[in-house]
């Protein structure tokens, strides 16, 4: 019980610090949001448009930082994140509502698939570490880990999308016609194949390596030798004796990855023109869209911290030593 209270206390403190940093850091950027907003049109900006934009964003009236901070805290806790600068006059809530589901779907699913696949391969690679298959998987995962994933994304797009034409080049569903019902769902899945393949392949290496290394250290334990001596089935030892004990660190890493899902996958989203939070955050930072930056960071910090908290609790449940 004391452990749980302790964790909760840390959760609240960290969240508060995260919120404050989240307010301060974007404001350290030089420049003026109205100008940055119009910068995306490159050197075709009209000076009068900048002036009107400044009035719209309320930047013509000076507000001191403390008032802004109090407003920010109030807005955050009431769930009213204000109007986005970048998408003015669209409210931040609406921007998030249109991008979060895509990110959760794409990045969430990919993370889960990658974790399961990587961990299983890692278990097998650890178990068979002396055989060819074991070293094969090791080399394979080391290679995967060193590939820059935006490069992989562009390669997939070029080969499977453009050259072979198997998959669409952009967007989350067909933009060539309006689809409804099951056809729409199929179109969404079809469009998600390439981006999620990129994400899975890019993170697979890490899961394999983590799990393989855990396995190897667990396999040296006495109880494994005992199990072998007892003549238990190999598969049974691999999964029930070794993997079960080796998976704890992977679970922690998985929890944190799930927390980061909310922040999206920026480069994949850009390369495949996939609507998601990562891209929104990127553009928000470029245009100093404080309300949008704050809202996205709020959700990222919140979900990472929550994921940590849940993992801590789960640990207490999985590993009795922690409770002590």
């Amino acid at each position, binding site marked *: 019980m004391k452990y749980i209270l302790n964790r909760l206390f840390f959760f609240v403190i960290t969240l508060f610090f995260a919120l404050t940093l989240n307010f301060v850091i974007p404001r350290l*950027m*030089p*420049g*003026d949001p109205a*100008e*940055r*907003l*119009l*910068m*995306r*049109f*490159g*050197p*075709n900006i*009209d*000076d*009068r*448009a900048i*002036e*009107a*934009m400044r*009035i*719209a964003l309320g930047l013509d009236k000076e507000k001191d930082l403390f008032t802004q901070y109090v407003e920010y805290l109030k807005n955050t806790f009431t769930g009213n994140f204000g109007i986005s600068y*970048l*998408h*003015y*006059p*669209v409210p931040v809530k609406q*921007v998030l509502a*249109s*991008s979060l589901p895509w990110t959760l779907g794409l990045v969430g699913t990919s993370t889960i698939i990658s974790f399961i696949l990587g961990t299983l391969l890692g278990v097998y690679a650890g178990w068979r570490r002396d055989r060819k298959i074991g070293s094969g998987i090791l080399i394979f995962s080391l290679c995967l880990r060193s590939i820059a994933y935006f490069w992989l994304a*562009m390669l997939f*797009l*070029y080969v499977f*999308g*453009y050259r072979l034409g*198997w*998959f*669409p*080049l*952009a*967007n*989350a569903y*067909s*933009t*060539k*016609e*309006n689809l409804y019902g099951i*056809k729409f769902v*199929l*179109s969404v899945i*079809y469009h998600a194949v390439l981006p999620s393949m990129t994400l899975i392949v890019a993170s697979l290496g890490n899961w394999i390596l983590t799990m393989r290394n855990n396995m190897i250290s667990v396999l040296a334990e006495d109880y494994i030798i005992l199990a072998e001596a007892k003549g238990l089935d190999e598969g049974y030892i691999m999964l029930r004796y070794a993997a079960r004990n080796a998976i704890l660190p992977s679970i922690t890493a998985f929890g944190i990855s799930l927390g980061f899902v909310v922040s999206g996958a920026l480069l994949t989203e*850009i*390369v*495949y*023109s*996939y*609507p998601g939070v990562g*891209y929104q955050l990127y553009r928000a930072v470029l245009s*100093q869209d404080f309300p949008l930056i704050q809202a996205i960071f709020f959700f990222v910090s919140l979900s990472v911290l929550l994921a940590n908290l849940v993992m801590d609790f789960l640990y207490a449940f999985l590993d009795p030593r922690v409770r002590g």
Partner: protein
Amino acid sequence: MNVLIAVLLMVSAISVASELSMVIAVTGPFQRNFNPYFAGATGYIAAGFIYETLIYSNTKTGELIPWLASEYEWSPDLKEITFKLRKNVTWSDGMPLTAEDVVFTFETLRKFPALDSPGVWKGGVTNVQKLDEYTVKITLEKVNTFIIYSIAGVYILPKHLWEKVEDPSKFTNENPVGTGAYLLDSFSDQVVVLKKNPNYWNADKVKVEKIRIPAFSGNESAQLAVARGELDWAGINYPQIERLAQQNKDIKYWFAEGNPVFLFFNLSKKPFDDVVLRKAFAHAIDTDQLVKIGMTGYAAPVNPVVIKSGYEYLIVEDLKNLWWKHDPKTAERLFQQAGFKKGKDGILAKDETKLSFDLLVPAGWTDWIAVCELLSQQLRDYGVELKVTPVDFGQYLQKIRNKDFDVVLSWANYGPTVYHFYDNFMNSNNAFVGSNRGGWIDERTDELLAKMKQTSSLDELKSIIAELQKIVLENVPAVPLYYNPVWFIYSTKNFTGWPSEKNPYVEPRITGMDKIYLVMHLEPVK
């Protein structure tokens, strides 16, 4: 796997005839906002396609074309303009367009300055009055013939709907009702579809039945879509477009002259207060090389007086002997004449002043940075050191505004006509804060610019522009390098009638009314 792909391919079948697909800008998923006064992908769709202006100012030809107003007339003292509205215009909900709507729109812009991006009230409009159901009179504080171009940026709003909106400057207008040629057919964050308005006042002219605008977040995917011939109109950049155009005969391109790009000097401090030194720079720079290598040939050359094609009649032939061109010998002579000698390090110096500067350029504008690198190389031969310094865009404008720079690569807003350009580029009001980035401050220039806004006589305009040209040529406030390209890639597979270098009837911009004027010229291929 193959079966699955086949099924999925069938699901994404190809489009309908007489449907135009275009990319407005690479700005990511759409947000549902059809307020024509806010820039951004869907705001641009609203401006021109759904909402319209009283008159249309064609930047390319300089024409003012009557639009929702069938005619307009200046009063003899140039202090009033009377607009006659067309009588057959209806809003897409069936209500007629009347003078009430026009007055309401201008009043809304007055009450909410955030909406006044065309700058009509700041430009001196004092009153907008309804004379009868179809006539509106606009009164000016003082003579300003330029105001007509600002009025050409005012999108008329329906009073019966917008008067219920509490704050139009925070209104996303999700279900737009306009007078325009197109209605919103469907909206999603990945694609916006417009369909032709059957009751449009000029419906005979509109041959494009549907416009499909998919969202793109990255250049890669938009460029590949161009390469696959999926887009009829793309206003995006595309490296080595000429190779693609060779492979695919349908794909064509045209880089219209956009805003001019300059090497600006900080005129407020040493050593660039010296005109001889500025002239030396003008002769030292090889702009052809900048265009060919820096801009990979995708920019149009500029003349020293920055007068675009279409306005050649304003160029004064007698002043052509003052036009500078790339000429190393003259440049060297001018550097000497300004009193600069090469020091031990090979860099030109005079007393304490060394010709060694940071050349500012916005970070991430890769083509511009390439141009800066070339400039730096070209000038090194003369003994001038330019250190290319990419800075964050916000900081870039801030440094210019605070006069905290020596030389900077930047642009000037051309505006709808060459007259606007000279006003933007040379008016002391715009020194350091607007397009007059080097800070050219001169009484005679300001007088001429003020006079320019008080006349409607072409002869008088000509003589003013002639004197301004002379000032530019004698003083070199900045060195023009090239026109930044307006990227325009189009396909003749589904439509013909596109503007091109040979038939430049419109500047193919996606931002304002130009795009509807362009679409009205398109014919579906049978």
